């Protein structure tokens, strides 16, 4: 499926949820959406369009907490980033792990390193620092002046 067709389909189905579409090239697209519609958009990409979930990257910026969910369309080499910006004070978003297992570990990791809360995650335990890291201290957060 062509990249343009995917963008059109997303625009058609999620007109009110999409905030910005940034097509960098035929193989790289960033779609910024409202955080509350992540389940709908990710579900459409994974179930209907058959994209593979690669991983998610969290960032701590001046805007707050950002997550890029990376999806891959292996037949065309497209990497589609679903981008969300979360609230600074109480970062939380619905978990994708009930839809596919691929996001289970990375959501636990983001919870541990950034303190982002994944709602309805099947098992939001620590992944890498169990028992050797202080509670409530998130090592990947930054101090902005």
């Amino acid at each position: 499926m062509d990249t343009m067709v995917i963008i059109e389909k997303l625009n058609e189905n999620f007109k009110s949820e999409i905030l910005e579409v940034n097509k960098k090239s035929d193989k790289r697209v960033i779609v910024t959406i409202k955080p509350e519609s992540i389940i709908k958009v990710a579900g459409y990409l994974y179930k209907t369009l058959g994209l593979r979930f690669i991983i998610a990257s969290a960032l701590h910026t001046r805007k707050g907490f950002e997550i890029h969910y990376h999806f891959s369309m292996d037949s065309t080499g497209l990497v589609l980033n679903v981008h969300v910006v979360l609230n600074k004070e109480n970062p939380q978003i619905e978990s994708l792990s009930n839809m596919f297992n691929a996001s289970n570990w990375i959501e636990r990791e983001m919870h541990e390193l950034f303190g982002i809360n994944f709602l309805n995650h099947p098992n939001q335990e620590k992944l890498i620092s169990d028992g050797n890291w202080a509670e409530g201290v998130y090592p990947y957060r930054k101090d902005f002046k």
Partner: protein
Amino acid sequence: MSKKTIIPVGPYHPLQEEPELFKLYCDGEIVKDIKWETGYNHRSIEKLSESKTYEQVFFLVERICGICSTSHPFAFANAVEEIANIEITDRAKYIRSIIGELERIHSHLLWVGLAGHFLGYNTVFMWAWKYREPVLDLFEMITGNRNSYAMFKVGGVRRDIEKSKISTIRKILDDIRKKADLLTGAVMDDPVIHARTKGVGILTRNDVIDYGAVGPTARASGVAIDVRKDDPYAAYPLVNWKVITAEKGDVFAKAEVRLLEMYESVSIIEQCLDGLEKTNEGDIAIKIKEIPEGIGTGRAEAPRGEVFHFVVSDGSNSPARHKIRAPSYVNIATFKKSCIGQTIADATISLAAVDPCYCCTERLAVAYDARTCRKVMNANELIEHSRMKTAELRNKLL
């Protein structure tokens, strides 16, 4: 409630090369559930990367994994070059692909050896590791190092492959092909290996999609994904080769995919050497002044699957955020599917079949009785257990 015995595989175990703890919950001989603990090797490389310059990050990411030490710089170079919108020279592309494919050959040989070791085929182990040596010698000749080659940089590679070395490389490649024939024959025609690995640790197509598994683990289940074909980079679009797949998804299929991939790698390197002969010596890198602000996504096919690097640049000389996803991160999680319902003797080879690499993601076996907390089996006994099953099968078949 039935009594269950917990068999911890890890954190330090001769079954695998690095620390990680698997707890196998067993009812008699059958694995009923599996839990894992990681993080023993967490070095916070993503955070460290933010304090290094782009040139330094190559040396840092090269140390994520000792076996596939070129796939991380490969993916990182792809990401940074995407931000800076750089097209490298053909000669640099060929050299990058040669290093990448030599690494695949040595990594697959290493796995075949280890798999043989777990099954009680120590001759296969000795042979495979012996045949791997000339590949490491080649690395030493080309890069100066047997491991952690330090070949990549933004805009190209650090060292050229001179004309005088090409004939030696071709000769060693011919030898590798002959040795691969021998190994493939030994594995594919052995009725005991068939009985021991076919139908063991099956991962279905749906499991692969659900867990997002990549590399030979996915390709052995009929999911033909390979970044070298899907999102071509370096010299892969310039040469002819095919993606190897198998349908069954068991341990045998995974071995088959890896063995046949070695032939493709040899063929790719030979074509890249032809390419080198057509380009000018010394034309290996272009000068990069600065990396602009932007977001870059770099992918590379490591021996274990897709390596993914996501780099955010703020225009300074070091990454503002660098996210790394190694293939084992998604492949290891598939144990939940491949091991449950298996016997303990088969669980060891199922765990080894995805070629797990924990340094990338971030080992051992002692069995405890869940009720009495008494040790019932140690690491060597577990491997011995796996070997005994092979010996029993051998006696039955031969």
